[in-house]
Structure formats: structure tokens, C-alpha cells
């Protein structure tokens, strides 16, 4: 992760606000988005305009099917010619029964190449970097991952927060909202009046810090310290 390539992740519970956030980000010129969802969703697809670039899997499917059919033709015809023996008084190369073999080969190779196309196109195996992924994305949360310059971090964070994100992570580190911190400071000043509340907030702080600490340990990343200083 180079310095110019910062990753900021917003986690959402609701699809409609997520879609609004995507639209806003794209309007602001941030096109390097990756949206996570537990379920395929047309609104997200539309917001991302994925229809512009249709999936290339169809080429895999088509070529695989044609190849399979050709394999079927060659297999049956060539082996029959290789050892010509008349069975049931039928021609050596009898097309009607071979159609069945050709059909099965077409389906077999076409299907397997579709599977290959899926693995290659969706970059399933390639994409193994300790990316910003949250385990809740397979449960009930949605996420937007924006890849951007360090200068844009704050702007993107504001957009994400304006559209009601649950939380923001920068390069894998949970980022506490600035406003919340201010409130906490105020609360500290009014310690005498609201002791109990302060205690709670403190506990929260400790928890959040612990989280930060955990992530820090997991990713020995020079960028993290920078972020924390923010």
C-alpha cells in the first residue's frame, strides 16, 4: 500500500443510503469504488453503472461450447474412421447417434469454461491482499471501499458520514468521528454533573482504542501510525 493509495471504507446498514453515497462519490469524481454486499442488488449495480461493462464470461461460455462441440465431432468421427467396423448395418460415420455425444461434450466443456471464466473474471483467487474487508459483509452490512489520494481522505470521509455510515475505516483502522470526540471532551469538563455518563463514554473509548490496537497488531503497516495521529 503506497502512500498515494489510501483506502477508506464506509460500512452501511441500509441500501438506500449506500446507493446515495455511491452516487455522490461518483458525482464528485471518485470512480475507484468497490462495493461489498451480502446479496446481489440491482440498485447498487445501477448506481455503479456496471451495465456499461458487461461481464466477459459470455465469451468463455461461447468459446467453451464451440470447442466442446468440435471435440465431440472429432472424437466420434475420427475414432470411427480409425477402426472402421460396420455395426448394425449403419454407416461408419453415422451422425444422428453422434449428435448425442457432441451435445454432451458441448455442455461439459462449455460449463467448465464458464466456471473458469468466473474464477478469472471475478479475480477470486488473485485478490488476496489483506484488503479492507469486513466479516459483516457476508452477514447484513454493506460497504464502500474507495481508493484515493491521501489529500482526498477527509473529503471522502465527510461524504461517507453525511450519508449516515455506521463506521469508517481508513486503511483498516477504525476511525472515530471527530464530532464524537468533541462531545466527549465537553463531557469531561462537566465531570461533576454527569459522572455516570463520563464513565460510559470512557469505557467506550477504551473499547475503541482496544480495537485500534488489535488492528494495529494485525497489520504491521507504517500508514497506521499516521492515521492514528490524525
Amino acid at each position: 500500500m503506497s502512500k498515494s493509495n489510501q483506502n477508506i471504507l464506509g460500512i452501511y446498514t441500509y441500501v438506500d443510503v449506500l446507493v446515495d453515497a455511491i452516487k455522490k462519490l461518483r458525482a464528485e469524481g471518485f470512480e475507484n469504488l468497490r462495493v461489498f454486499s451480502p446479496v446481489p442488488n440491482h440498485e447498487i449495480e445501477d448506481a455503479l453503472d456496471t451495465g456499461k461493462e458487461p461481464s466477459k464470461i459470455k465469451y468463455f461460455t461461447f468459446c467453451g461450447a464451440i470447442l466442446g462441440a468440435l471435440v465431440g465431432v472429432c472424437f466420434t468421427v475420427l475414432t470411427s474412421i480409425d477402426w472402421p467396423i460396420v455395426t448394425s448395418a449403419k454407416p461408419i460415420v453415422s451422425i444422428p447417434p453422434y449428435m448425442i455425444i457432441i451435445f454432451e461434450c458441448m455442455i461439459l466443456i462449455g460449463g467448465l469454461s464458464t466456471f473458469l471464466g468466473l474464477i478469472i473474471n471475478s479475480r477470486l483467487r488473485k485478490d488476496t491482499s489483506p484488503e479492507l474487508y469486513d466479516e459483516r459483509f457476508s452477514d447484513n452490512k454493506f460497504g464502500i471501499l474507495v481508493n484515493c489520494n491521501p489529500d482526498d481522505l477527509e473529503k471522502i470521509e465527510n461524504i461517507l458520514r453525511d450519508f449516515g455510515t455506521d463506521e469508517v475505516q481508513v486503511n483498516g483502522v477504525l476511525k472515530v468521528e471527530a464530532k464524537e470526540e468533541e462531545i466527549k471532551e465537553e463531557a469531561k469538563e462537566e465531570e461533576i454533573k454527569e459522572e455516570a455518563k463520563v464513565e460510559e463514554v470512557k469505557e467506550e473509548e477504551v473499547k475503541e482504542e482496544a480495537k485500534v490496537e488489535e488492528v494495529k497488531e494485525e497489520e504491521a503497516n507504517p500508514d497506521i501510525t499516521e492515521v492514528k495521529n490524525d
Partner: protein
Amino acid sequence: MSNFDSLSASEKYSHLNETVMNMLNKPGWGWWAIFAVDMMFLAFGIYCFIYQIYTGLGVAGYSHPVLWGVYITNFVFWVGIAHSGTLISAVLFLFRARFRMSIYRIAEAMTVFAVATAGLFPIIHLGRPWNFYWLLPYPNQRGLWVNFDSPLLWDVFAVSTYATISSVFFFIGMIPDIAAIRDTVVGKAKKVFYSVASLGWKGSSWEWGHYTRAYFYFACFATPLVISVHSVVSWDFAMANTPGWHTTIFPPYFVAGAIFSGLAMVITLCIPLRYIFKLEDYITMDNFDGMSKMIILTSSIVFYAYLIEFFIAWYSGNKYEYDQFIYRAVGDYALFYWIMMFCNGIVPHLLWFKKIRQNLMILFIITLLINIGMWFERFNIIVISLSKEFEPGSWGLYKPSWVEIGITVGSFAWFFMFFLIFVRTLPALSIAEIKEILPVPKKNGGSSHE
């Protein structure tokens, strides 16, 4: 039920994940007990097979003129069971039938395991099963190739293609769900297993984009495949000139019969599973209703085929054909014939009544009867036709031996072994697809179906 309905859309998503994770918990004594009993039956089946190999095919009941007995009956039966899984996962997917979502994983698993069971029988019924690979076309020292004009070879291609494609289809469908398990599962070994199996799935928009396309193409391939496979199986019979086999109605009749028996088997499996794992929120009465209606449809097609066969036997003026069908109805095997007629033709029509469709106990019994009826259908086609062919001098009767029955019971145990392991290791409900039919979590304007 009402509890589930009161959850918010987002909570429902989580509830679904939890439900599936609960199914993967460490199995209790109940599961182990069932598994142990299952293993006992399987062991007996394996013993019978080994006994048959050592002693020779004589211990199996089939001999001249009935040289295809219970083993080929089982083969056709299990291939038939497999078909409805693909129907539910592929054909109903193309038709956008929403009731398929929560049951299709179970149906697909059933497909894969049923094909794995069916594939054993052509090998078991060989006198020298270790030479089964002679059926495969491979370059050999004799320079011979297989006979591509033979329906038995079409079977080899059709069934092995079907096994491969349905397994891959099964796996593709599970990728996002395995990823969901990976994200919550505890324990290092399990984590590694599910991580590898999920192929690094993250659920990002481009993954979904390619995934839904690939799934669609797979469904397009699987749909004609499922029709071709059972047509090919029917040609094993229809290509021969044996009375009772040599008819053009066989492919559609077999395909309808396969889907009919498979649907019954899906219901047979779903009802106890739903009860044991408390899946009432997901496998709803609507699912059973939809499947029951399809049973009525396919049962009607099958019953029509039974009747039209009689008509054509008479109308064709072919004495052998005509006598064959009269023999089926009143001859030595008449009991099995009428069991078939009753279970496949009459009983399913009880499902026209909504009250019966909604009563799971009765539905369960009906589907069991259909399974029995469909097994006897194959038995009747194979055995009755072979026992009385053209030459009265070569007529003969067939009775299954204890070895054949043992292996048949073993095949059921073999199928259920896979199924029992499946419900404890892999997501039996399709997490991602059920989320598609659950309301989408929305902040403004409540929640909606997209």
C-alpha cells in the same frame, strides 16, 4: 413465525446467517445415532457386493431371460431422483420461481448424491466390475475404440457429464455462502477449510456481476442437459426392439417421471429437515405448495403416458406389444403394476386439495408412496418386458435375491450418508439467494423487495 416477521430487514439477514451456522454446530447424539444406523446398512450393502464379486453373479437373482434386474432399476431410479434437483436449481431459476430459493440447495445436494449413487449400479451389475473402464474411450493396445452407436455409451457420456456439471453448479451456488460461513466459523481447521472452499469470495459488486452471469449461463446449460440425460437413459430401453420398450414416448415419459420422483424425494427430505433444524421461517408452506403443484403436473404426464401406452399397443396392431401390456396388468407381476398405478397415478391427485397440500404429515406419506411407486415403475418396465419377449420358449420369471436387496438398501444408506454429512458441513440453505427474497434493509421508505 411471528417472531421472525417482527424482525427488521437487517436483523432478518443476520437471523438467516445464524440459522445456517446453527445447522453446522457440532452434531448431537441424535445425528450420530442416525449416522451409525446408516453406516450399518451401508456396511451390509458393501458386504453383499464383496460377496457377489467373490462368488460370482449367480448370487444376484437375474438370469436368462431377465438380465437387467434390480440393479438397473436402481440405476434408473437414482438418476431420476437426481433430475428434480437440477430442475429446481436451473429450470425454476430461469423461470424466476421464487419458491425455489429456500429449497434449491437441498435439491441440488440431492442431485449430486443421487448421481453418485446411480453411477455405482452399472458397475455393480457387471460380472467383472474391475473392467468397467472398458466403457470409456481411451487409446489402448488393441487400437479399438468404443461403439458410439450404442445407447449404453451415450449413457456413459450423459451421466458423467451430468455428474460433473451438476457438481460444479452445486459448488458455484455455494461460493458466497461458504464465504459467509468462513467469516463467522470458529476453529482454525474449519476456517482454513471454508477459506479455501470460498475461493476468496468477498461479495464485491464486480464479483456479484460476474457471478450472476455465470450462474445464468450454467442454468442455461443445465436445463437442456437434464432433459438429455434422462432421454438417453430412456433410449437404453427404447432403442431395443423389446415389446414394451420400443416406443417414441419414452424420452418425455422418462423425463416427466424423473422430475416427478425427484420432487417427491425433495419433499421427503425437506419435511424432516425443516422440523429438526426449525427452518419454518425459510422453508415455508408456500414452498411445499409450489412443489406439490408440480407433482400434480408431472404425475398427470406420467399417468397419461401409462394410459397412452396401452392405447398405442392396441392401436398399432402389434401383437407382441399388445400382449406385453395385457401381461403387465394381469400377469405374474400384476401386483407391482397396480402398486405403480396406484402410487403414481391416483395418490398424487389428492394434492389437488389445499388441505392435503398444507398437511405435512399426509404430504410426507404421499411422497413416500410416490418414491415407492416410481421405483416399481422402473422395475415393471425392465423386468416385465424382459421376462416375456418374442419367443415363448425363452420366457421366464425373475425374483430379486437377498444380495440384490442388500445392495439396494446399501445404496439408500450410501445416499443418506452423503446427505447426513452435507447438512452438517455445508450450508443447506442458500444464504445469498434467500436474502434476495427477504426485504432489503432501507432507512427511508421502509423496506421492499428491491
